[in-house]
């Protein structure tokens, strides 16, 4: 049987470690998804025409299931959002002329022809 002091010491050390873990691994951060070093690619066939066979390699869908709109939320008053932040870099392929860097198809309010694009798509 372990001595009393050892059990007491273990309990207190466990409490301290739990407190440190609680601060370091904040629950909110547990629901923010970090996806480093994901490679997406497209591999067209020899004719350069039909890429459909491998087209799914080109997509990375991210879903978290149902979300509430502000009107439907049972509580809370912040605007619900999905935010994607990160960097994308061409690994292979030919170099291109540095003309248009960002081309917004629809709904992006603040984008410029630079390497950085910050949009609030409402």
């Amino acid at each position, binding site marked *: 049987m372990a001595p009393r002091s050892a059990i007491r010491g*273990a309990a207190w050390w466990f*409490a301290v470690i739990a407190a440190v873990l609680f601060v370091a691994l904040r629950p909110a951060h547990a629901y923010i998804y970090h996806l480093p070093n994901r490679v997406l690619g497209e591999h067209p066939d020899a004719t350069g*025409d039909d890429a459909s066979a491998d087209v799914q390699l080109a997509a990375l869908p991210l*879903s978290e299931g149902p979300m509430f709109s502000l009107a439907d*939320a049972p509580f809370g008053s912040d605007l619900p959002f999905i935010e994607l932040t990160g960097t994308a870099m061409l690994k292979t392929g030919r170099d291109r002329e540095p003309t248009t860097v960002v081309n917004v198809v629809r709904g992006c309010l603040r984008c410029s022809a630079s390497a950085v694009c910050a949009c609030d798509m409402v």
Partner: protein
Amino acid sequence: MCRQIFFNEFNQDRVGYFVPGTTGANTLASRDLCCTNRMASENICSHAGHLVVAGVNANISAASFDDSDATPPVLTAYLLGADSPLEFQNKHIVKRSGEQTAMVVVCSTAFTITEEVELDLVAEFRNPYGYVPGIKYGYIIGYGILSASYLVRAPWLAACGRTTSSCLCLSLVAVAAADVWWPVPVAP
């Protein structure tokens, strides 16, 4: 070309093209997402290399649950050479409750080369009350009460640990720590 699109369960049928005759159900995973030269020549979509979205660049009908729902917003970025990483920060406001999806799609414009794009990505799905997913919001109140009960009992747990040698104290502290850690739905 790197594209990001945001859609929900009501307008997801607008994304991609389901080739007639394809075996299996018409789901997002079974559709062609990028417009190819062949599809453009057949007038299915307008520009090869673009993401196929009905109502934006595709002449296809989408069997959406609700045709009045907004067309999914698409953001397009052209990638330069390997020495020019593209930084992005795109926020989409959720206006309608339901299943939400964000998707990053890489489409080639030239169709003559193999392209690979390396992504470093952080995705946040935030509800009006915090980051806890919508399907788990019911836990918040229950675990909040549980957390409060452990706080109330904290002095007793401390006294227990200092005055007795029972392993019960150790297990109580462990259970309390595990329970309190999970539920706090506060944004950072």
